């Protein structure tokens, strides 16, 4: 394989050798990709919530509201990050079965999963998850409903700010609304492999 490495690199060098000069690396300012008419909301959550709704996501501001939504749909069996559960449990009726260990042999048992977000992007309604803060990748993906808890100060204004602050984590994922496809005749269907319902829960005190 190291032969192939040398072979490829030497072919690249040979291909570029005849060029009289190399194209320079242009510099650019993040302002260039700022969205038109972007508001600087005093409350970043307000803009984030609006954009999350625009991509068919669901912003919620209270645990009671979350429990009521799940109850109304009959989704009473779920997974919750063990660190988050103590602060959330009192809002959930006793009829709920919430596991703080995710059993990968029973992925279909979990109707919802609650994990912590690392951040969010207001202009796109995007939730940011990383290995550091996500207790289980599967818990945030396999259930029909994913709830990411988020604090106001974690919200970035725009995509460039989020890129600039990419954490030193081997895995960071931006989630912009529920999983979707338009493969069959261009018709939008949500909940393909990931959640069909993507919730952001504000947990400010």
């Amino acid at each position, binding site marked *: 394989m190291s032969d192939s490495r040398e072979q*490829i690199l030497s072919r690249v060098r040979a291909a570029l050798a005849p060029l009289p000069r190399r194209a320079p690396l242009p510099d*650019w300012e993040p302002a260039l990709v700022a969205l038109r008419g972007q508001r600087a909301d005093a409350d970043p959550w307000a803009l984030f919530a609006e954009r999350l709704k625009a991509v068919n996501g669901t912003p919620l501001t209270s645990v009671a509201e979350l429990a009521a939504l799940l109850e109304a749909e009959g989704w009473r069996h779920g997974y919750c990050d063990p660190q988050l559960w103590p602060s959330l449990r009192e809002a959930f009726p006793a009829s709920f079965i919430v596991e703080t260990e995710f059993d990968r042999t029973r992925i279909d048992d979990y109707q919802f999963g609650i994990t912590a977000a690392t951040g969010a992007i207001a202009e796109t309604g995007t939730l940011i998850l990383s290995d550091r803060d996500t207790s289980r990748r599967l818990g945030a993906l396999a259930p029909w409903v994913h709830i990411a808890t988020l604090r106001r100060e974690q919200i970035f204004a725009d995509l460039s700010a989020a890129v600039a602050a990419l954490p030193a984590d081997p895995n960071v994922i931006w989630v*912009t609304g529920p999983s979707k496809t338009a493969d069959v*005749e261009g018709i939008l*269907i949500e909940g393909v492999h990931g959640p069909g319902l993507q919730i952001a829960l504000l947990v400010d005190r």
Partner: protein
Amino acid sequence: MAGQPIDQFAARLPADKRAAVYLGTKTTHEKRTQLLFDQFADPDRLRRLAGEIKQHVLENLDTYLTQAEAQLKAHGAQVHWAATAEEACGAVLRIMQARGATKMVKAKTMVSEEIGLAPFLERHGIEALETDLGEFIVQIDRDHPSHLVRPIIHKNRREIAQSFEREGLGAYNDDPETITRRARQYLRHKYMAANVGLTGANFVSAESGRIVVVTNEGNSRFSLAATKCHIVLVGIEKLVPRDRDLGLFLNLLARSATAQALTVYTEFISGPKLPSQPDGPEEMHVIFVDNNRTGVLASDCREILRCIRCGACLNVCPVYRQVSGHAYRSVYPGPLGAVLSPLLAGGHFAEKADLPKASSLCGACNEVCPVDIPLPDLLLRLRDKGKRAHASLAAAGTPPMGAWAILASTPGAWKLALAAGRILNVLPLGLIPIPALRAWVGKRAVPAWRGGEFRKWMRDRRKP
């Protein structure tokens, strides 16, 4: 005159497929344009900037490749190099065999199509399952994708329902939601049982080694949550210099490809999972694939390697809209494919020499390209290359020009023809017995034939 192969294909394409491809591409193109121009003050400036950044990467590719390699290794990933398709397939197989792995879940990657990975692995007793819904349907049908972003743009729901029924995925039901739910239920257990997850890469940041993979369905994420080994198959041209450049490219990619501000799942991967994370790959391999990209880099068409595979040039192309993707007889269809496929073919260039002719040179592909590839120029360069190589396909569908060549290079015959042309001034053109020609001249004023006037002027001018 048999016409170009692409014309022959188009003539056989059923009308409903043509209509589906036309509608699908037109809708996406219109939404893309609206989104870009609504949301950015100067989207053309973004395209040009992205093109300049990619051109810079290509012209310094050796530096960026070694930088990315060092970063990936520093983060615990293993880096492999494959000069050919065979080497790339072999590298994947060796990684699988070293782990005793027999089951792979695959995300959508065009380079895996290019090297024929899934059929290769199947021949070696490995299940390599496509997980993108469209690619999964392509796979069970033993078909080929016909669009970079929407692989089954050429299939309707009835055909898909029949395929699902045949594969034992439930009784016939052509409701798109039911089709999607059945695939969800079937595939999620496949992820859990698989040993290895394979993805492509939309971008690789040389600065940090971050691999960026985007999907709307979440299939790539599922394989990176369920399996313990991640293989990334990536063409050597997929690099960007810095993390912050990703801010520009991600803004352009989703809008150009699917008219979204961002693809639903945008994943940044720089190595195996954190030790504290229970799910995900403990082992990560990155395979840099050449497969004659270095040949393209050495050609006068190297700009094509800027391509980020968004499909915008397919969606806007009047030829693609009429013929669909399979007409290009290549993994890469559309204007991009008409340039890239003959070039990647290397020594087999002549077999694809007709593809650069499958264009009206209207220039729409260049106007929508998020990395500003001068596609019409490249198509012309390849037409020229085909002619110079005397590739017979490069002349397919071209009217014979032999008589014209004799006329234009024999002064006596030329003068005679110019004089004879005056007959057009007295013929009643409205009565031409060929209906198409009659309709054409009926809508236009044919200027009076003045053949020979220029020669006369030149002759008179020389006189003192």
